[in-house]
């Protein structure tokens, strides 16, 4: 059955550019030069017989010599004293926390190898975001410092301590300030250590500043509620969500927790109950959140305030001046306002701007909608972003005036991520003694006099409190690998306190946190967290002087408004640049543009055409007197006259993998009204040269096949089968193969397209679990990325309510602002009639009695026929020994980093095909556990790595032979369809139609 929509993987496919048509011919980017060898010149050489014999002789001799080495002697070195809890071969799990989320760390023989969500935690408990999963690699990062340093030279800790204490005493004697600059610190232990330190040196002050700041939101809440906090949002209670430029599923506050809650109103379970929330997004660049919206309106950054004013007017019936004049937005706002008012109490508006006035207006709107209490919680507020831009300003001023004696930097890298790096450098030059607690000699640390490197969270004792009342423990899973020392310990030592960090943290918990909870320290170590907050917050009413706020918004918009407007945003993958040396993250494609290893200027294709920029072109983006040159991405959905640039790239001193990847866009930001602003008036001009970005999704063509099924919520309510394409063409199918019984297990998967947001944490989790190598930018350009699981992003382009369904219509498109997006995770479908299996000449890929498509690497000899024959394009070929080849010196080419590898999974060698194994090691381990415990396998005993990382619960895995398993239930859903069902390969992965809750005007 044909779908009502036409899907495009990208503009290349839509436009059928010559390069695309050429490259879509073969499975592999570079054809094998068979023709060159077999042509006449190749065969009619002068002395083929002699050459042949020479080659043969040399070959024989070489092989004989190579085979002459003796079988290596393997040593087996047992522990001298085996730790009681370790059994070699059995993983141990420790509760810890990362970025405020309670997680479980899996260790093998004492080394951490993966991170998963703590399923019993409060808040985010069914998945992790990509940086969390990838963070295990940071432990094994060779670019970190191995010793403390003074002036770039390794020193002993005692020497460093003496130097620091002398500097502190000097500053204290002179009455100069001692400043600790950090990003948000919510750890009770760290704060206690700072307090202990401040008790010794009374001139200590603690300045918190975040690279991407939420000062505006905090200020607005202070002004309107008298609470200077970032609230926590509970999207599970929101039936209507309006977001104005807030990427709340991705980078805005705690995107992953929002995803978990938001999807609860949109996934298959919710649809089964006939419920689905509605989400309307106003934004300029196509963000991941925007790509998931039911309705998305492209607006310029300067219009954000105007849209909110119009919305306020519509909701309250007032008539503030300064509403939006954008026609599309006006129509949408009318409908949206009605929706919001109807859903009072379960409707919420969020805005991404770091601007006091805009956030105050949003507070007023949310008060009208009754969102405080049920959705926006000011009581159990978030403590993740407490940074204050103005406090940092004050520090810079004081430092430049020579009032600062000592400055410490903790998780703070202002030389890189403050928009005026020269100011920071100038300020640092005036500070008598500066020290960074960075784990590497980064941009700021190299400007300071000393570095006291800290270990990663996997080596530390500590805690976090990402939310009021929620306390999570950080416990070490390995001894510190390098000669590092925790910041708390350093501060204590300098304050003259010699308590061990363990005693300090434990004592702090026992006296300040555990009192009255009835829990002991050991309970916390086992459970990972304590929650003392309430389930929901109480209601609040914003006290806003609307007229003043509105006029301020209108005034401020003038600053940004222009022919071209710039929007800086945090990339879902790279965030603020902190994790730039993590190769897993660098190679994770952006959820929307699918670009890896670079940032770029996203332009609307029509706008790019106006600028005269072609494919692989470059532009100069200028704003606030600063300019950078970036490659261009034609981004459908991007508002005309806007350019979006991701932050977090262009690090210069982060390490092998992350140095000089992309351009640093922070200098384009500006400080307005005391908060750092990420939008600005800009100019974009064509720059010379071309640059090919490493994009993953341009790699194959879908040949116009109908692999996405999409319906609207209204249609779904009438008929749940709508558009699933299952009942329209029933015809007799014929099998070429015998039917085999699968009496034991039959492993299948269900993927809910309505739940998948495209975030990509499953991809990273898969990389970590299955030892999938990172191949680097050049190889991605050659279509050689190794990801077993990818998320395909498809566009449909609409204009004036019409869908663009024919290639030739493309010429008539005015702008590409109206696009809708579907994200489709694509992995080996484990077909029952797998086309790859029949073409393998050596039976290296065969079917199992449990419905899996096995891949025996040691049998494969690399004909690549299987990849050619796979209709889903999910097979990956190892062109190199990526973990042992100096050309891929990103991260894994040393014995230390190789400790991150999962010991239960083979590392594949060059010349071997690989693909999703359905985490067979986990299946086998789960079965074995059941057998050892003498019981049948239960549903949920085995979880895929991707499934465990998915906070949207979009991936459901289980046994189809168990009729009560979650996956069996999910696959009985009316929305289920199988991709390329028509070619009768009988895939074992079912997809559920994408349902869009569009507004039927």
């Amino acid at each position, binding site marked *: 059955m044909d779908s009502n929509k036409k899907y495009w993987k990208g503009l290349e496919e839509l436009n059928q550019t010559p390069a695309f048509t050429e490259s879509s011919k073969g499975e592999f980017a570079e054809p094998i030069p068979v023709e060159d060898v077999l042509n006449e010149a190749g065969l009619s050489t002068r002395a083929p017989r002699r050459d042949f014999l020479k080659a043969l002789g040399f070959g024989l001799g070489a092989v004989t010599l190579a085979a002459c080495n003796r079988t290596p002697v393997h040593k087996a070195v047992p522990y001298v*004293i085996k730790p009681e809890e370790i059994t070699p071969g059995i993983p141990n799990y420790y509760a810890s926390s990362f970025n405020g989320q309670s997680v479980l760390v899996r260790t093998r023989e004492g080394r951490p190898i993966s991170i998963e969500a703590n399923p019993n935690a409060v808040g985010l408990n069914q998945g992790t975001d990509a940086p969390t999963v990838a963070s295990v690699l940071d432990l094994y990062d060779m670019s970190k410092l191995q010793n403390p340093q003074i002036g770039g030279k390794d020193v002993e800790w005692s020497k460093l301590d003496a130097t620091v204490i002398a500097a502190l005493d000097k500053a204290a004697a002179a009455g100069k300030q001692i400043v600790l600059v950090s990003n948000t610190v919510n750890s009770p232990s760290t704060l206690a250590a700072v307090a202990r330190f401040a008790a010794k040196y009374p001139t200590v002050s603690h300045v918190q500043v975040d690279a991407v700041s939420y000062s505006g939101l905090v200020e607005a809440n202070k002004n309107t509620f008298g609470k200077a906090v970032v609230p926590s949002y509970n999207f599970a209670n929101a039936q209507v969500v309006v977001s104005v430029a807030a990427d709340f599923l991705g980078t805005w506050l705690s995107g992953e927790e929002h995803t978990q809650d938001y999807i609860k109103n949109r996934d298959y379970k919710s649809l089964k109950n006939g419920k689905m929330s509605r989400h309307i997004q106003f934004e300029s660049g196509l963000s991941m959140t925007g790509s998931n919206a039911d309705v998305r309106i492209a607006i310029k950054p300067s219009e954000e305030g105007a849209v909110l004013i119009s919305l306020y007017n519509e909701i309250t019936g007032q008539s503030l001046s300064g509403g939006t004049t954008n026609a599309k937005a006006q129509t949408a706002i009318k409908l949206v306002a009605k929706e919001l008012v109807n859903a009072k109490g379960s409707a919420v508006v969020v805005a991404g701007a770091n601007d006091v006035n805009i956030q105050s207006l949003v507070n007023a709107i949310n008060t009208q909608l009754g969102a405080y209490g049920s959705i926006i919680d000011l009581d159990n507020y978030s403590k993740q972003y407490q940074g204050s831009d103005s406090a940092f300003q004050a520090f810079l001023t004081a430092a430049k005036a020579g009032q600062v004696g000592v400055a410490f930097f903790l998780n703070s890298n202002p030389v890189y991520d403050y928009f005026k790096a020269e100011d920071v450098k100038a300020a640092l030059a005036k500070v008598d003694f500066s020290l960074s607690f960075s784990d590497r000699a980064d941009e700021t640390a190299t400007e300071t006099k000393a570095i006291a490197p800290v270990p990663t969270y996997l080596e530390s004792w500590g805690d976090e409190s990402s939310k009021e009342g929620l306390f999570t423990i950080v416990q070490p899973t390995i001894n510190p690998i390098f000669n590092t020392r925790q910041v708390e310990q350093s501060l204590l030592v300098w304050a003259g306190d010699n308590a061990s960090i363990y005693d300090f943290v434990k004592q702090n918990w026992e006296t300040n946190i555990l009192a009255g909870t009835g829990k002991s320290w050991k309970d916390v170590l086992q459970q990972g967290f304590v929650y003392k907050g309430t389930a929901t917050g109480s209601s609040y009413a914003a006290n806003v002087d609307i007229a003043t706020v509105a006029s301020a918004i209108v005034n401020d918009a003038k600053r940004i408004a222009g022919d071209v407007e710039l929007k800086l945003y945090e990339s879902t993958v790279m965030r603020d640049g902190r994790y730039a040396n993590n190769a897993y993250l660098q190679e994770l494609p952006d959820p929307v543009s699918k670009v890896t290893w670079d940032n770029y200027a996203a332009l609307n294709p029509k706008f790019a055409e106006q600028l005269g920029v072609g494919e692989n072109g470059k532009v100069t983006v200028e704003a606030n007197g600063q300019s950078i040159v970036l490659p261009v991405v034609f981004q459908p959905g991007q508002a005309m006259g806007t350019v979006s640039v991701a932050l977090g790239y262009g690090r210069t001193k982060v390490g092998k993998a992350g140095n000089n990847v992309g351009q640093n866009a922070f200098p384009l930001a500006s400080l307005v009204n005391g908060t750092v602003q990420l939008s600005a008036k800009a100019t974009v001009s064509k720059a010379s040269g071309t640059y090919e970005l490493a994009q993953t999704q341009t790699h194959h063509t879908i040949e116009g096949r109908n692999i996405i099924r999409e319906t609207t919520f209204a249609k779904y309510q009438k008929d749940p089968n709508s558009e699933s394409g299952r009942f329209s063409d029933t015809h007799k199918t014929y099998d070429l193969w015998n039917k085999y019984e699968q009496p034991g297990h039959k492993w299948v998967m269900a993927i809910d397209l309505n739940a998948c947001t495209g975030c990509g944490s499953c991809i990273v989790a898969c990389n970590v679990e299955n030892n999938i190598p990172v191949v680097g930018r050049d190889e991605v350009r050659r279509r050689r990325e190794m990801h077993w699981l990818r998320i395909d992003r498809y566009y449909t382009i609409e204009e004036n309510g019409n869908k663009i369904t024919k290639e030739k219509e493309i010429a008539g498109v005015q702008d590409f602002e109206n696009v809708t997006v579907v994200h489709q995770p694509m992995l080996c479908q484990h077909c029952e009639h797998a086309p790859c299996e029949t073409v393998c000449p050596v039976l290296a890929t065969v079917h199992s009695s449990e419905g899996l498509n096995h891949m025996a690497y040691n049998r494969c000899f690399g004909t690549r026929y299987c990849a050619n024959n796979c209709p889903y394009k999910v097979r990956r070929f190892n062109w190199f020994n990526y973990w042992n080849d100096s050309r891929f010196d990103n991260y894994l080419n040393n014995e230390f980093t190789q400790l991150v590898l999962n010991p239960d999974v083979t590392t594949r060698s060059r010349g071997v095909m690989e693909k999703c194994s359905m985490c067979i090691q986990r299946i086998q381990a789960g079965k074995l556990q*059941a057998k050892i415990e003498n019981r049948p396998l239960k549903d949920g005993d085995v979880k895929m790595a991707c499934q465990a990382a998915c906070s949207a619960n979009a991936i459901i895995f289980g046994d189809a032979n168990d009729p009560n398993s979650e996956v069996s239930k999910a696959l009985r859903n009316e929305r289920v369809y199988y991709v390329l069902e028509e070619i009768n390969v009988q895939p074992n992965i079912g997809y559920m139609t994408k349902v869009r809750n569009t507004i039927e005007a």
Partner: protein
Amino acid sequence: MRNISSVLGRLAKSISVSLVLLFAVTLTSHAQDVKEGAALFKANCTACHKIDKKLTGPALAGMSERHSEEWLITWIRNSKAMVDAGDPTAVALFDEYNKLLMPAFTQFSDDQIKNIIAYVKDEEAKLAQAAAAPAGGAAGGGASSDANTFMLVGMAALLLLAIGVIVVLNRVTRTLEKVIANNQAAIEAAQARNEEHEGGDKVKFAQKFLKNKKLVGFTALLLVALLAVLGWQGMWNIGVHQGYKPVQPIKFSHQIHAGVNQIECQYCHGGAFKSKNASIPSANVCMNCHNTITAADHYNGETSPEILKLYRAVDFDPDTRTYGDNPRPIEWVRIHNLPDFAYFNHSQHVVVAGVECQTCHGPIETMEEVYQYSPLTMKWCVDCHKETEVNADNKYYDQLIEAHEKLKKGEKMTAAMIGGLECGKCHY
């Protein structure tokens, strides 16, 4: 030579000791029952005490001089009570030995304790005499029961025998040479006749053979076939290390531990029951026993040199009985090496399938040195999977067995039938 002299010295020493022993036993046995004392001592005291050396407790030699008999009896029966009561000697002793309490032996009668004391005195006397005994003595004599001594005697006898044989053979050679010298002419004539006759035959045969092309061809074919077969077999055995018996850093004998002493495999290789790795025991597991077991009775009162290697590994000082902080892990040589692309899980086989360790590892309890018993080839795995019946008692298999019963009534269900031969079960 130095070796031999030291061997002789030791031989003489041990023989004289045993002679003295024999004598001493007859001397003292009348007063107390030394034999019973010996039995009791070995059963109850050896874990912590030696006669001439400090162990967990003090060396016992001279205890009768140090303490009165009554004191010793009370002490042995219940030392804690004595310490608690504040007996100064008892408290001093208690403090000296790290405040480790000697277990109470309330079950002993006075006589039994006296027997033990007598045994200790007796041993003490023997030691003293052994020390005082003059070196050297008569060779030979079967009084020694010491295995080492016996071997030395045997070797000496062998040496003598060998010398004898050499002398005799020399004689014979000389006689024969004389005979040859006497009949030189006759021998040469006979040889010449022989050569002429035989040489002619051989040449003729070779010529005939070479003329027959078919026969040559056939022989060549046979040779090629033979080489091919040998090559084929050789190739199949590349990488198969059946019988691999590397030299280990410590001469650990499974025959003594698993065979003679009947220690459960699980005690040391607990991993085999829980994990994919059977795991070599960590040195602290060895120390559970070797803390006190020094095999000194086989090494002339000294700690076995192999056990000393263990002490070195854990940095244990047997004299002060303390651990240092410089352990050196033991680097065993791995015998069973599966390639990295093959996944094998011990617990699956040992716990779930109930396979005996010996099925794959051979008669491990008789192996002085462990060698690779099985070929560890894939064929070997597969053959077993084809035949091994699945353990039907395990509830995990209930569903499978039910399905199987429906399909093939009465036939046994092997590992192969439930997917035990599929690639992905071992290769991922």
